[in-house]
């Protein structure tokens, strides 16, 4: 058994002196715990009690205050990011949706309520948000467990490590849960090594003796591949190698991913991965910013002479006189309500699938949530007006 349990519980190590009284920290930041025992580097990453080694050493009050302050600041910056990024994104999206026109943006601001905006954002960005959180927590835990073993490890820790430390376990668990229900099934296996890394779950946790451990792992793998074998076979037939890799490799990686990294790779890994993850997130955020806030519709407009015209766009608002439509190709159109002959909801081309694979009739690009939704309301034929 490794020292994970001891660190996770936050029990003070009897070998360590009792910490001196310290300044209060914000409620979000947990109380500092004593440093894990040497060799217990694989201690649980969701240990709420983020170890602040300096804080546990008496006679270093200045450093301890610094550490507490840093933690408080990290906590603040983390929560600011969690709340602020969606809010800023939502407003930015309005500008993009309006086609960069000031007056159109103002029209949208006037008609799209903050709750609608935030709900719309969460609907389209839940996947990105959970990906960001999962990446931060998994990498943070991997770096943290390795960082603690470095000589002079009490110096300033990488950003992700600090974030992972100050985050309560329930929030980490909730992030993984959100990823579980919002990620496309195709990418879901990646959640397995990420989860194991974030909570540093080594196979030794399954059973103390090797043989039962091997049997348990064997049974888990058998179940996993029984579930996915038809899909993997189908992917092989279609030559979809990425899908095969994504289904087969992550569970194997999950077996080895927990544990400290060699000292030589930690520092470069810390800086490179953090920058890479942040860059990837910005790159992934661009399409989210340009995802429409309002649903796409086709409105059939008649001019009274029998001729009709289809207006493709997003309905901003409807009052007694006009229906205001933000056209797909730009520009706002005010259509008199009595000229509206019909209206249909249309899918957008971004929703077209990239793969032709299914896992027991669930499309691999659907998340669990979407897949379940499709079972509740099986899709109807695409309306002719949408073509």
């Amino acid at each position, binding site marked *: 058994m490794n020292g994970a349990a001891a660190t996770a519980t936050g029990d003070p190590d009897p070998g360590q002196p009792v910490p001196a009284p310290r300044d209060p920290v914000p409620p979000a930041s947990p109380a500092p715990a004593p440093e894990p025992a040497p060799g217990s580097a694989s201690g649980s990453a969701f240990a709420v009690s983020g170890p602040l080694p300096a804080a546990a050493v008496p006679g270093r009050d200045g450093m301890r205050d610094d550490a507490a302050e840093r933690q408080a600041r990290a906590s603040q910056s983390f929560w600011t990011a969690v709340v602020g990024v969606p809010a800023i994104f939502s407003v930015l999206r309005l500008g993009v949706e309006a086609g960069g026109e000031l007056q159109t943006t103002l029209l949208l601001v006037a008609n799209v309520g903050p709750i609608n905006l935030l709900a719309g954002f969460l609907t389209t960005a839940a996947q990105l948000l959970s990906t960001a959180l999962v*990446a931060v927590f998994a990498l943070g835990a*991997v770096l943290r467990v390795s960082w603690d073993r470095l000589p002079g490890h009490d110096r300033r820790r990488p950003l992700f490590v600090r974030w992972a430390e100050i985050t309560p376990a329930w929030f980490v668990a909730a992030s993984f849960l959100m990823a579980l229900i919002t990620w*496309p099934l*195709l*990418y879901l296996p*990646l959640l397995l*090594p*990420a989860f194991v*890394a974030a909570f540093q779950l080594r196979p030794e946790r399954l059973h103390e003796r090797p043989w039962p451990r091997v049997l348990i792992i064997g049974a888990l793998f058998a179940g996993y591949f029984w579930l996915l074998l038809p899909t993997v076979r189908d992917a092989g037939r279609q030559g979809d190698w*990425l899908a095969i*890799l*994504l289904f087969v*490799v*992550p569970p194997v*990686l*999950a*077996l*080895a*991913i*927990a*544990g*400290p*990294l*060699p000292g030589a*790779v930690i520092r470069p*890994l810390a800086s490179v*991965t953090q920058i*890479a993850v942040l860059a*990837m997130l910005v*790159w*992934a955020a661009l*399409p989210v910013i340009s995802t429409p806030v309002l649903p796409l519709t086709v409105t059939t407009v008649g001019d009274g002479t029998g001729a*009709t015209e289809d207006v493709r766009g997003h309905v901003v608002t409807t009052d007694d006189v006009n229906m205001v439509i933000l056209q797909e190709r730009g520009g706002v159109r005010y259509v008199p309500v009595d000229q509206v002959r019909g209206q249909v909801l249309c*899918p957008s*081309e971004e*929703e*077209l*699938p*990239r793969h*032709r694979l*299914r896992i027991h*009739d*669930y*499309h691999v*690009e*659907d998340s669990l949530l*979407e897949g379940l939704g*499709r*079972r509740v309301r*099986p*899709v109807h*034929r*695409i*309306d*002719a*007006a*949408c*073509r």
Partner: protein
Amino acid sequence: MNEHIAGSRVRSVATTLAVALTLTLAAAAGCDSRKEPQLPSVQEKLRESHIYGQPTLRIGVATNEPLMGEVPNGVHVGFDVEIARYIAASLGYEGDQRVEFVSVSTEDRIPALQGGVVDLVVSSFSITEERKKLVSFAGPYFVTTQEVMVPTRHKDDIRTIEDLRDPTYKICTSGGSTTEAELEKHQIKALVVKNVGDCVEGIRQGRYDAVSSDETILAGFLARFPTEFEIVDMPFGTSELLGVGVPIGDPALRDLVAYFLDKSYQQGRSGETSPWQTAYNRTLGPWLRAEKRQPQPLDVPKLVDFDDKAPRR
């Protein structure tokens, strides 16, 4: 002790590898989620086809083939017309304002497509190798056989192919049809007119003694004059595959029509009521001697569409 150090070294190398591979896979997944779909989509094919942006779709249909294509009271009805409406709606042309039915006779079907008079032909158009050199086909959407229909006055005289060769009987068929070629192959001299309807009218007026054509077309006339005619089952030995005619220069449109016919076929196979089945039940179904099913369309392209993620069961 040394073993322990070696073990932990192996372990940390394994962990490094696992972390690196996970990051690589995550990056690959990220790129995959951002890339354009590789499979052609219905929308893409639509943009490639010549009908893209057209306000209406012009479809060539028969107007004098009962059950298949006719115009009682100014409204186009029949099995072919229903299939044409389904394809038009799938292509984005729903409702009679968006679809323009153009009357084409049997021999005009190919020139109408070649000359751009119509965008599609759905008019008992048999798929043959010769025709494939001039127009493209999507389908088949129906398999029929060649039959002979005789007036009740001849129902005991004309029973075999040999009887048809008897020069005392005047056999009629429509020009430019596969039946014409088939009769020639059996050394049967036939009088060729414009449409099967003309043959039927001729028989009723006593000018001809029998008419040969597809079972579907003959069933239509039998439905119109049930007491005057009878269909005689003759072993011509060929089956006619009816397809939707598309201009040869528009493979995208052919692919789309084939895709939507296949969609209906798949619906029927999974036990749902397919558009084909509805059309069949409303028109031909009650008049054919044997129950028919939608044949599997050939050369169906793999396209993606918005409803591809829908559950299949």
